[in-house]
């Protein structure tokens, strides 16, 4: 069995005295896309933040390419090869589209020329961004901002991309546009963790699926084998 690129081991965590995660075991293999679904407050975003060093966890709880990395600060995680599209996009206001991208290029694991992702490639993927490259980020629509957020994360040249609710608050047409680029990201050798509330979207886009409920994994399996009934039971808790 090969070592997963990213795995968590009995991961617990939360905010101060409030515990939100109760022993999460999850693994992501190289080149794989997994999705993590669950209702509001299930702990999905807390889980991503815990992996990414934004919340305190013990070193052994998170392993990256087999090495314990739990609790490493986020900016060092980027150097190791993990990057994140945060919930709500969190772009740098007061800066242009291209400046937002350049912050990632400045701090990436490898240069734009060495890595799989460059501004030119992203401008091909999202042509509208090329047009708006000199515009302040505030002038863009929600969908365009999401494209910038994804571009920014990719320009860190990640081995693992964490996506936190990238469909949230966007029109269905825009969501389709954004999800259409996931196969290309995957083809570039990047493994992806998708956090989604939209169950059918998550099933279609991923190889495997985990369902969370109240800080625990309640279901795990190949996305296309799991029945809707099983998901419903895991998502809402068996009655």
């Amino acid at each position: 069995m090969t070592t997963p690129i990213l795995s968590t081991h009995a991961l617990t965590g939360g905010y101060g005295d409030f515990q939100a995660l109760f022993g999460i075991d999850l693994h992501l293999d190289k080149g794989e896309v997994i999705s993590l679904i669950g209702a509001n407050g299930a702990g999905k975003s807390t889980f991503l933040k815990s992996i990414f060093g934004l919340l305190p966890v013990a070193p052994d709880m998170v392993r990256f390419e087999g090495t314990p990395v739990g609790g490493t600060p986020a900016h060092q995680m980027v150097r190791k090869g993990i990057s994140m599209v945060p919930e709500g996009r969190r772009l740098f206001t007061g800066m242009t589209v291209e400046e937002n991208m350049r912050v990632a290029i400045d701090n990436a694991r490898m240069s734009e020329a060495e890595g799989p992702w460059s501004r030119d490639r992203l401008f091909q993927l999202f042509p509208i961004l090329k047009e708006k490259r000199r515009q302040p980020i505030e002038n863009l629509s929600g969908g365009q901002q999401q494209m910038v957020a994804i571009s920014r994360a990719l320009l860190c040249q990640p081995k693992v991309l964490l996506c936190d609710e990238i469909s949230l608050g966007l029109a269905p047409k825009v969501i389709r546009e954004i999800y259409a680029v996931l196969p290309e990201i995957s083809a570039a050798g990047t493994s992806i963790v998708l956090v989604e509330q939209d169950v059918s979207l998550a099933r279609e886009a991923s190889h495997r699926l985990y369902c969370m409920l109240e800080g625990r994994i309640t279901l795990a399996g190949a996305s296309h084998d799991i029945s809707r009934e099983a998901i419903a039971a895991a998502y809402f808790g068996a009655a």
Partner: protein
Amino acid sequence: MQWLDAIIQGVLLGGMYAQYALGMALMFGVMRIVNIAHGDVMILLSLTVITLAGVLPLGNIGLIVVIVPIAVLLGWVLQKFILNKVVGADPLPSLIATFGLSIALQNLMLEVWSADTRSLPNSGIASASFELGGIYMGVLPVLVLICAIVLTFGLDMVLRTSRFGRGLRAAAADTEAAAMTGVDPKRIYAIATAIAVGILGLAAVFAALRATVSPSDGSAQLIYAFEAVIIGGMGSLWGAFLGAMVLGVAQAIGLRIDPGLGILFGHLVFLAVLATRPEGIMARKK
């Protein structure tokens, strides 16, 4: 003619305030750290320069070459060991920490240097002047103004075009998102404060050449720096420069009306700007 003279002298005075304000614009305007000890750090550097001048046979240029690296180091230490522990979305912890630092510094300076006023020995430059079209200008104030313009221009370029500048603006906009993009906010902040205090090192030499300094003078410089940044608009370096000019001119005009009115006039103009354009003169339109 008398008023033209007042305006020119005001602009020259503004050059000095601009040097105080630049570091403040970087820390308060961009990083949102309220550094109450800003003026006291400047006075500390001034007094250090005066003591250095007494023991080392350095010219004014030599003093600048010595004090600026000391100031840069001081700024870096200040951010690394004090301010980085209190920065965050809430401005209150940094305000309280630097308020305490301000009091500690003032008392430390009283202990070391006593309450006497001191200045750098006059090397000729402080009293040299030249005439231009019937108006006399001091060589030193003109030099101060030129330095302020060069510094503002340089720092603005750094912020807009360098890797460090982008990282700082990103961290100021959203610290957590900047960390997710590989920026180490604490390292960037330490460099920024080192630059801000480094500029104060230069200002400290000019301040000690231009007039006297004593350990309790810091708070007045702090107020001028704050006012310049707020008049100009948060986050804009040229705004802070312009704010310093407005403050200098207002004080010079007030002084011409009545010698007791100068400083009050500056504060009145500050209040007028707060009342009519609280976002500052050069604030970016949203």
